[in-house]
């Protein structure tokens, strides 16, 4: 390549002076950790879709029982076991209120002289499934969030103290955790549920009694990693108290793993609640959660599959959404994946 600089038209280039003052200037706007994480999360289609889906489910769980003209617990025996019927969609041949009776397909609404439309059908006692499903979703989500919040609180405090103070304190605290994690979760939950009065509170306590150990381990590991770093030493040199170092300097760094861990605790709690209800240790009638609805529906699977299918579908959607959001957050918050 020959270099014909003189052939270039005059004035195409300006000579600039090198300015040492500018060398340290940051040319791009600085992006905080959370902005960066959000940017990465936005790229994850599955996670964003799940986030929207989950938002919709929460919205319906809150609004569903309110907009439905029937209360979740009111029984209309003459309207028992009706299949779902939704206006407009019924013209498509689904959700049209047609069910089998004595081996024949008939419009059960016509037969039983029912004027109203039950969007999700009714159960064996003539209770509206639409309001029951959303009410049940509300209860299931409440249990899961409460359990996850308590797990998080205990786990963070326990793991934080254990990791930060180290030495003997850590030794003793870790031996306790080691024994607790040895006890299978399933066994603890079932035993605790049995001695308490069945109800929402009992399930939350049973789920959290050893549930926090996972969180405490993760937090301890992170605190151990960060506490020897220079910024902590600097804070201590400047006279910061232990409490301040933990809250102001360590916690922001540990927050990522806390969030990720919580996101995986929630579907676990939802699953366990449904599981307990399914084996008959859950909420007692007339209270409903997704688990008890599935349990009720299961008994009628042969004749009224919709009673099982709808709550099972909602439960599965919530679980899938949470797992996808959790995956997305893990990728977004994990600094190792930074691109």
């Amino acid at each position, binding site marked *: 390549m020959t270099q014909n600089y003189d052939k270039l038209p005059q004035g195409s280039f300006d000579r600039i002076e090198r300015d040492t003052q500018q060398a340290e200037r940051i040319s791009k706007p600085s992006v905080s950790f959370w902005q960066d994480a959000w940017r990465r999360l936005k790229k994850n289609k599955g996670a964003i879709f799940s986030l929207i889906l989950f938002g919709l489910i929460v919205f319906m769980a809150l609004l569903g029982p309110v907009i439905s003209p029937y209360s979740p617990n009111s029984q209309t025996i003459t309207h028992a076991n009706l299949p779902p019927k939704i206006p407009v969609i019924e013209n498509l041949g689904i959700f049209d209120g047609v069910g089998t009776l004595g081996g024949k397909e008939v419009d059960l609404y016509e037969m039983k002289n029912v004027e109203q439309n039950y969007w999700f059908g009714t159960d064996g006692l003539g209770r509206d499934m639409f309001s029951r499903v959303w009410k049940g979703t509300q209860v299931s989500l409440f249990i899961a969030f409460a359990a996850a919040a308590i797990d998080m609180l205990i786990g963070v405090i326990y793991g934080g103290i254990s990791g930060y103070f180290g030495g003997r304190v850590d030794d003793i605290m870790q031996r306790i955790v080691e024994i607790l994690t040895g*006890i299978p979760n399933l066994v603890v939950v079932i*035993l605790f549920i*049995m001695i308490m009065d069945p109800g929402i509170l009992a399930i939350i306590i049973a789920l959290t009694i050893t549930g926090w150990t996972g969180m405490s381990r993760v937090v301890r590991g992170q605190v151990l990693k960060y506490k020897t770093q220079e910024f902590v030493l600097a804070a201590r040199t400047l006279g910061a108290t232990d409490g301040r170092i933990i809250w102001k300097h360590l916690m922001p760094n540990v927050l990522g793993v806390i969030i990720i861990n919580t996101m995986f605790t929630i579907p676990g709690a939802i699953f366990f609640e449904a599981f307990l209800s399914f084996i008959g240790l859950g909420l007692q009638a007339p209270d409903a959660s997704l688990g008890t609805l599935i349990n009720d529906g299961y008994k009628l699977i*042969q004749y009224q599959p919709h009673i099982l299918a709808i709550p*099972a579908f909602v439960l599965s959607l919530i*679980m*899938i959404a949470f797992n996808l959001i959790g995956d997305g957050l893990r990728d977004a918050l994990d600094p190792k994946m930074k691109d």
Partner: protein
Amino acid sequence: MARYIGKRIIYMVITLALIATFTFFLMKILPGSPIASADKLSPEQRAVVEARYGLNDPLPVQYFNYMFGLVQGDLGVSINQFKGANVTDVILSRMGPSAQIGFQGMVLGTVLGILLGMIAALRQNSWVDYSSTVVAIIGISIPSFVFASMLQYFLGLKLGWFPVALWKDGFMSSVLPSIALAMFPLATAARFIRTEMIEVLGSDYITLAKAKGASGSEIAFKHAFRNALIPLITVLGPMAVGILTGSLVVEQIFAIPGIGEQFVKSIMVNDFSIIMGTTIFFSVFLILVILIVDIMYGIIDPRIRLSGGKS
């Protein structure tokens, strides 16, 4: 290594003693009597029955009797369901079906999961990869009882390919429950193997093998697959937990005369000794699985040093 195993076994014994103690006292404070139709008995009859099962002894005596029996593998007697039958015998007699579906589910799930994960990793970002991700997410998310009832409804009731809920010692009755239990290990293995394989495929020794002219299948099976398989051992523990939890409901759904079904039934009728016995049995099983998995991992993968420097 020996030191590590010794330490782990000591922990195991402490944990089990704790679980047994805990279970024992919980059963004592539980509402309801372990004697069937206790209200119908006259006080005298009741006293006779209670004396027979040692329910009148002071609590510490009952406790030590129980713990002493436990060490010898005696889990006490079932009071209301089996009229004095030994709990150990009851559990052992019900182990067969549970072991069968658990084992079949585990093998089916892991083998299919490994295959799926491997293909997904080798054909990254292809439709196989995406569908394997979807299967994995569904397998992890959908609870086994939802999946089991779906199988029962469609393959059992609608198509009639398999018995709906009938256990006749045949292989056919175990197909649906095994598939239901296999979903969780399948999803876990598929996800795990995919991640591991992708990591291994990017490592230097694979590049070297390629540079030396190894064929694609040779690289995939001889080099990548073997190394990706080792870490799978670490998820065997959670898989076993998943299978056990699942078996409680799956046995219920398919009416399988196994331990899980008995356990749930015992909870309903307050058969304390069966509940205690099963709890301890489950705990021993899970703790042993996790211990074996940890030890196996240390032996198979020499890069892992369990005892933290001192070997």
